[in-house]
């Protein structure tokens, strides 16, 4: 049972990170469909870094940098060149899939040492939850820290309020004197960083090798998670855990010899995503203020 819970948590970490980053991005008004691509680049970057530098912690940094690099390409086109956000995000994912496939080709077959678990003394001795929550790797702790920080940032800081304002009405924000572009660049880069670390988690902790497309659609699920969580950070934790649980249903099913074919079990996360989106869309139709007002709209600065 313990092992099951630990696996669920581990599977949910990449979703958690990518979704939180995307939430901040969307709160500023930018819809980034390139999350899958950013995660992939984080994965391949982390693997390459660890193979080269032999220390798994460098993988985290490399993952973050790779994610930010991809986000920068996205930001340049959508924020500075005012291109269509949906098409650009798709392009980014297609581009990243190709680029990571290329960069990852020489890495196929190689394995690395995983990130070690860090035990927080005293807390890890608490019965039941101790060993589960306080014997995690650095990225897991980071992900919780990022969610807490993101929540605090949005709700209680002036900068967070300014970011929300930009997402609410970018023209008003501009009229008051805020640089919409700078703020969106920040938000998108943050999203890239989180997606990159989330992607890095997969080779660093889950499956310590590289294969093409190893994120298997997690980036897309993260996008759905943001909607499902109604753009409220703590709800992402709930969503990510649910999806983590559904994802490993396939492994559990096989281990326990369920009569359902493994492919059908593997479909569950994707079908669950569709169901989750359907459920939440009904709510959103009634209360449109849940959605960030300027989401997806390019900001045209007419100087």
């Amino acid at each position, binding site marked *: 049972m313990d092992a099951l819970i630990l696996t669920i948590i581990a599977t949910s970490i990449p979703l958690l990170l990518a979704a939180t980053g995307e939430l901040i991005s969307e709160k500023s008004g930018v819809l980034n469909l390139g999350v899958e691509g950013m995660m992939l680049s984080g994965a391949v970057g982390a693997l390459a870094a660890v193979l080269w530098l032999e220390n798994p912690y460098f993988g985290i940094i490399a993952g973050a940098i790779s994610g930010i690099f991809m986000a920068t390409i996205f930001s340049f086109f959508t924020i500075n060149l005012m291109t269509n956000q949906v098409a650009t995000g798709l392009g980014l994912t297609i581009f990243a899939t190709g680029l990571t496939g290329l960069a990852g080709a020489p890495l196929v077959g190689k394995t690395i040492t995983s990130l070690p678990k860090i035990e927080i003394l005293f807390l890890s001795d608490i019965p039941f939850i101790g060993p589960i929550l306080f014997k995690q790797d650095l990225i897991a702790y980071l992900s919780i820290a990022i969610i807490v920080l993101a929540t605090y940032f949005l709700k209680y800081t*002036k900068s967070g309020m300014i970011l929300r304002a930009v997402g609410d009405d970018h023209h008003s924000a501009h009229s*008051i*004197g805020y640089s919409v572009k700078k703020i969106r660049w920040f938000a998108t880069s943050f999203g890239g960083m989180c997606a990159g670390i989330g992607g890095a988690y997969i080779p660093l902790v889950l499956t310590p090798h590289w294969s093409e497309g190893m994120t298997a659609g997690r980036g897309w699920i993260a996008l759905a998670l943001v909607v499902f969580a109604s753009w409220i950070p703590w709800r992402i934790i709930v969503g990510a855990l649910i999806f983590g649980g559904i994802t490993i249903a396939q492994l559990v099913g096989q281990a326990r010899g369920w009569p359902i074919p493994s492919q059908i079990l593997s479909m569950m996360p994707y079908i669950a995503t569709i169901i989750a989106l359907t459920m939440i869309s009904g709510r959103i139709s*009634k209360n449109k*203020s849940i959605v960030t007002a300027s989401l997806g709209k390019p900001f045209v600065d007419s100087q």
Partner: protein
Amino acid sequence: MANRKELDILFKASKINKSFGDFQANIDIDISIKKGEIHALLGENGAGKSTLVKIFYGVLKPDSGTIEINNQLVSISSPKSARTNGVGMVFQHFSLFPALTVAENILIALDQKISFQRLISDIRKLSKEWDLFIDPLRLISDLSVGERQRVEIIRCLMQNPKLLIMDEPTSVLTPQEIENLFKILKRLSKSGCSILYISHKLEEIIELANQVTILKSGRCVSTLNAKTTSTKELAETMVGKKITKLKKNNIKNNKTVAFEVKNLNKIKDNDFGITLKNINLKINYGEILGIAGIAGNGQNELMEVLSGEVICNNDNEILLENVPIGQKNITLRRKLGIEPIPEERTLHATVPNLALNQNTFLTYYYKYKNRNNFFSNFFISPQHSSEESIKIIKDNDVRCPEPNPLANQLSGGNLQKFILGRSMANNPKVAIFSQPTWGVDIGAATSIRQKLLNLSQKGKAVILISQDLEEIFELSDKVCVINNGVLSDILPVNEMSASDVGLLMGANINNNTKSEVS
């Protein structure tokens, strides 16, 4: 003597020039404003007023020219630097954030550090001092337009401005709210704060301002003493020619009921909408019914349900010549002779990136359908409308850069002429107009209003939904007011005064949407 005058001058802009590509928005503009003076900036749409004040507030940078405050050259490079230099601005369409609270909206424009508690108490203090009542913790999306403007003003006042710029502040207010605003502005001016007030409302300028600068086509054509000029002089200086009065034939004897709305109810379909409650109206042929109201009180919803874009719950809610049509859609209603002309010229009445023949086809396509030849109904396309499109352009003097231009190549006034022409060419029985002269300059506005009058004089029924009280009173035979989805009683125009209408516009109408409505 000259020295004394200069000491009085708070704000002086000299030779301001600004172009956007080939378009010259401001050409060699000079303005000077004394301390405590209320200075009006008058001009038609496109004269360059908004551009100029955006330069004063640092949102735009001029191509050339200087600004002096208290006789010192300043460089206003951003809104923040404008605020530092004592310039505050209330935008026409507001720069507020609906998803944030009043306090957050004010905080976001404050450059100094301040604790949230202190901010809230400061807001309450100012609010009380200036009679601008507002609750700091409410969300902007819950506030009325008048309340939102109060937030904008308080936001400016918190920075102790020397010059307060207001861009068309009264276009969205009731007469009573306008009175309150003027009281505040006069108080501000007495306390030494100068005010630069953009408006195209001549009566207001005469009542409020000390000086008025008139802009025309980007240039400053005149600076007049507001107290000694007249609306006629202002209008003519602004337009540059004599304005013709509308020709109105006041004899109306037609008693045939053309169009009737009976107990119409429509629940809003989203959070930001307005529920229409128990709408009743009757209009005879040859009449113009004016529906006044501040934007956002259900006009859009009413227009949708009258035009047929949204059908009624019950067929009997709308009657044309006593025949129920409530459940007929917009195309069927067009066939029956109802022509709606919506408020938004682009993206609603027309598709901007399509050509005029395609835009004609947009509302004419049903005419080419042939019940006999089912198959050919698939193969109708904009080419079928080319001839009619050319006729509309010719008959309505629509100025086009080429024979079949895209809709977005036409100026606002010309596009409106096309839209009106397209509808009128169908010889409708009932025409419904929503804000027909919004954003159109005086010349074109006058011609549009004359067209409405001509329509009614030809015996058609005209419904006019408008925010412009002047327009309502000038054109209507009967008047009513829409407020929060509720329609007031309809009275003949000579039994209503502007003040009555204003009270109805600004009243707090409770529209209880929780009660079950069939």
